[in-house]
């Protein structure tokens, strides 16, 4: 639970760097928190990594769509910074690093895992916009 505020800060701070409009910043933090909480709670409930990422992406997507309608801003403003805590950057990076140190099998496995997680994130994010499509802001 101690990590939750940090997910908020990560998303809100990177939103500043991504030039998000001022009034969106704190809400963006909330999206980062929602995604991370979905991920963390699913992990605690015993879900494997990829399933937990899927849960996080769904939570992030739903909260982003709701806020987009409430604030009349495009959902992408909330999704992109909010994704950051969930993104498999470290895994991809670790894979490349292992490859550079000739640990080929482990490196390839980490890269494949990063790709899988990125794919699951993208799939999870593809669902909420469809759910909300009929509800125009």
């Amino acid at each position, binding site marked *: 639970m101690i990590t939750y505020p940090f997910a908020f800060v990560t998303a809100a*701070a990177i939103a500043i760097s991504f030039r998000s409009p001022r009034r*969106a910043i704190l809400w963006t933090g909330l999206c980062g928190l929602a995604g991370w909480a979905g991920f963390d709670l699913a992990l605690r409930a015993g879900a494997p990594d990829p399933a937990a990422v899927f849960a996080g992406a769904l939570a992030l997507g739903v909260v982003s769509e709701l806020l987009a309608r409430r604030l009349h801003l*495009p959902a992408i403003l909330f999704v*992109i910074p909010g994704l*950051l805590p969930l993104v498999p950057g470290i895994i991809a990076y670790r894979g*490349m*690093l292992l490859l550079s*140190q000739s640990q080929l099998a482990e490196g390839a496995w980490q890269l494949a895992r990063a790709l899988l997680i990125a794919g699951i994130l993208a799939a999870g994010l593809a669902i909420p916009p469809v759910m909300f499509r009929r509800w125009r802001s």
Partner: protein
Amino acid sequence: MGSRSSTAVLQVAAAAGVVLLQSGADVARVEDTVSRIVRAYGVGDPEIYATPTGIFISLADQEATVVRRVRNRTIALDRISAVNALSRSLAADPKDPAEALRLIREISEQPMPFPRWLDVPASGLAAAACTMLVGGTLPAVVPSFFANLVVQGGERICRWLGLPDAVADLIAGANAVFCATLLHRWLGVPVGPVVAGGIMILVPGLAFTNALRDAIAGDLVSATARGLEAFVKVTALAAGVGAALYLVGGGVTW
């Protein structure tokens, strides 16, 4: 409307598409917005083909086509949101194309929502917070913030000097390891999470995910291009980190 005004409309639509692509919008959104603008003026059905590096818009029945090349890409969410609002207002009330073009130019030149100096501290803060998300401990957060200020500042300097992106990433990766190692020697802060937090901000995890989002939307060329961009970036970062770890005598520590 004659063919002259349909050319003017295509110019407006292309300008909007270029701003969106330069601001990091996904291809599906670009094509959707551009098509909405063209339809708002009622000049015909557009065929639109956008990729991260360029956009083609054509009115098939009028032999009118515009092509725009897109070179610089960053993430600028304020511009995406402004173009989105403009396209909606154009759909409700199609303004004179020259006026619309002026509004789009205004968007691409609009000042950042926050002062420029805040960019590096904000990235450093995000990296420091990420340190906790990748398994760091509370005492590592504040040192991590300062380490990542140096890393992010160095990266901005590299870009300001006009170094290619891959070189800037390589230097940033190496820089992250050096800063974390210094912190470890001085304060005994564990190296791993500090480097990992910094890497998390630099690493193209977002680019990977956006590539796969394009792929799911069916924009395969765009997905391939973004995936390759991400791959080059992660390779450069890992090379920088690997070289620096070799120099300071560490290994993969997390």
